[in-house]
């Protein structure tokens, strides 16, 4: 079972196709591991055990008849509880949504179902993908897999934790200002925010329409590309859905970085805001690795991190307030304090400031596109700080201001967070690899070359098992 806990999507898919691994056995092993660990890690809000077994049995029967659908057929996954699953509540980790019942599956869930994937359950998040870890909510906050006292990142916190501790090989997340890449960073896994419009948001509870992205979290780059391939594609139900067929995201995976031109946006974390030494050491070592692998790495200059962040934040909080206005007027007490604090400023943004932020966005998008003309990819940090204590609201609020992720929600370009190593205390550090719009294959190519050379993703946390459940749980 320990082997199954950390089995990759790619390997599982190959074994299932060759009928050397039973989807029912794989699914049962992960359900058992969830039961043995979740009282400690709180990654899951709801476990869809019956549905998972039914889907696994159906996949197994179909594959035995020779009907293999693709690399996720019979492979389990989990989803942030912000995606609709028909017949279940989409709670958004909020008291306001306890009585909700989704009428239909979100498009990403439909695509995974049609690919034969097996839904294990729905995962914890920051309330409405914007709050933070707090005791005020109906479900506990997910915990950092490397140190239970620390913040696991958010808002797709359960997605990062479940993948890191081996209770799901892949998970869906959403990213409006970094909410896939932040938990990937804090949990030491791979988190991709693809190009705006690549994955449909239909059936996903919105946070800020013009910044919202759907993306996968996995333990390997190859798995991430496989999962993105499964959920990408045009969807008329999402007004922002890109009208172009998705490329083959795995096509360039093993092409290496020799001869590639990679820019480093160092001023984000060395000048605009000063990053923690551990994070700076991680990306400095990564630059050396990329150079050693044959890439040409050089610094580039963009507008300040503060400018990108102010642009994104203005749009973010204005659009989020539009979504939550009625509930904040009628039942503000039902939100957690940290969520109210993030949503209420949207009531007081001037219309002119919102319009100017959208105008500034146009300028910043053009600036980034211009910088990318002579480059294949750029790298920069993800988080500027290391994870703080999960009960330290003030510091958590500061870390959400001190990050390099929002610029790529503003530009809408693909950005993946990958581990760059571990600190002396065993916490993961990370960087982002960013590409031109719709250049996910290139982003994955750089990420794969780097991750394969360093092997950071092969390290797993020491997973704590609930008392009495030792026989059920996989080893770390």
């Amino acid at each position, binding site marked *: 079972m320990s082997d199954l806990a950390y089995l990759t999507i790619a390997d599982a898919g190959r074994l299932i196709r060759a009928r050397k691994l039973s989807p029912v056995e794989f699914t049962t092993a992960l359900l058992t591991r969830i039961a043995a660990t979740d009282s400690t890690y709180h990654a899951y809000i709801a476990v869809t055990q019956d549905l998972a077994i039914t889907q696994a049995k159906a996949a197994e029967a179909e594959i035995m008849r020779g009907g293999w659908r693709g690399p996720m057929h019979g492979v389990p996954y989990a989803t942030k509880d912000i995606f609709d699953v028909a017949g279940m509540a989409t709670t958004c980790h909020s008291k306001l949504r306890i009585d909700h019942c989704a009428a239909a599956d979100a498009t990403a869930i439909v695509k995974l179902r049609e690919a034969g994937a097996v839904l294990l359950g729905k995962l914890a998040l920051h309330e409405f993908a914007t709050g933070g870890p707090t005791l005020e909510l109906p479900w506990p906050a997910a915990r950092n897999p490397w140190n239970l006292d620390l913040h696991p990142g958010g808002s797709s916190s359960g997605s990062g934790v479940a993948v890191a501790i081996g209770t799901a090989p892949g998970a869906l997340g959403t990213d409006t200002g970094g909410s896939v890449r932040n938990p990937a960073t804090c949990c030491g896994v791979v988190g991709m925010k693809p190009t705006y419009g690549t994955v449909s948001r239909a059936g996903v509870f919105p946070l800020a329409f013009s910044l919202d992205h759907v993306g996968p979290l996995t333990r390997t780059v190859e798995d991430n590309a496989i999962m993105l391939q499964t959920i990408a594609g045009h969807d008329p139900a999402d007004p922002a859905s890109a009208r172009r067929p998705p490329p083959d995201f795995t096509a360039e995976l093993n092409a290496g970085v020799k001869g590639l031109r990679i820019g480093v946006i160092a001023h984000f974390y060395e000048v605009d805001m000063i990053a923690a030494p551990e994070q700076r050491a991680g990306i400095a070592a990564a630059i050396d690795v990329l150079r050693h692998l044959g890439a040409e790495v050089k610094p580039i200059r963009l507008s300040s991190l503060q400018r990108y962040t102010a*642009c994104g934040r203005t749009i973010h909080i204005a659009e989020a307030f539009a979504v939550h206005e009625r509930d904040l*007027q009628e039942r503000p007490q039902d939100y957690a304090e940290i969520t*109210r604090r993030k949503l209420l400023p949207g009531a007081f943004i001037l219309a002119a400031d919102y319009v100017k932020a959208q105008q500034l966005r146009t300028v910043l998008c053009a600036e980034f596109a211009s910088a990318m003309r002579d480059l294949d990819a750029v790298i920069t940090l993800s988080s500027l700080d290391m994870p703080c204590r999960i009960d330290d609201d003030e510091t958590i609020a500061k870390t959400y201001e001190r990050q390099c992720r929002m610029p790529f929600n503003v530009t809408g370009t693909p950005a993946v967070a990958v581990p760059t190593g571990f600190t002396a205390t065993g916490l993961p550090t990370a960087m982002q690899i960013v590409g031109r719009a719709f250049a996910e294959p290139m982003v994955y190519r750089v990420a794969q070359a780097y991750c394969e050379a360093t092997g950071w993703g092969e390290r797993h946390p020491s997973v704590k098992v609930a008392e009495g459940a030792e026989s059920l749980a996989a080893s770390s």
Partner: protein
Amino acid sequence: MTEKPDTEPTMEWVLALAQARGLDRAYALYPEAIVAAVARGTGSLGLLPTDFSATTEPAITFDAAKFGGDS
């Protein structure tokens, strides 16, 4: 950046703003949160670039393909 009043907002002004937004209940329960929200909301955008022009086309219909999506 849009010009803002150069004096600190009074509680009366904050209350009036909250009422105008239908947030009377939130103000009654969490007055400090509303004060902080007014400060954060009205100061959200910060300084714009010196060469910024408000005649730029807004990104109302944002299209990533316009910005190098030819890969």
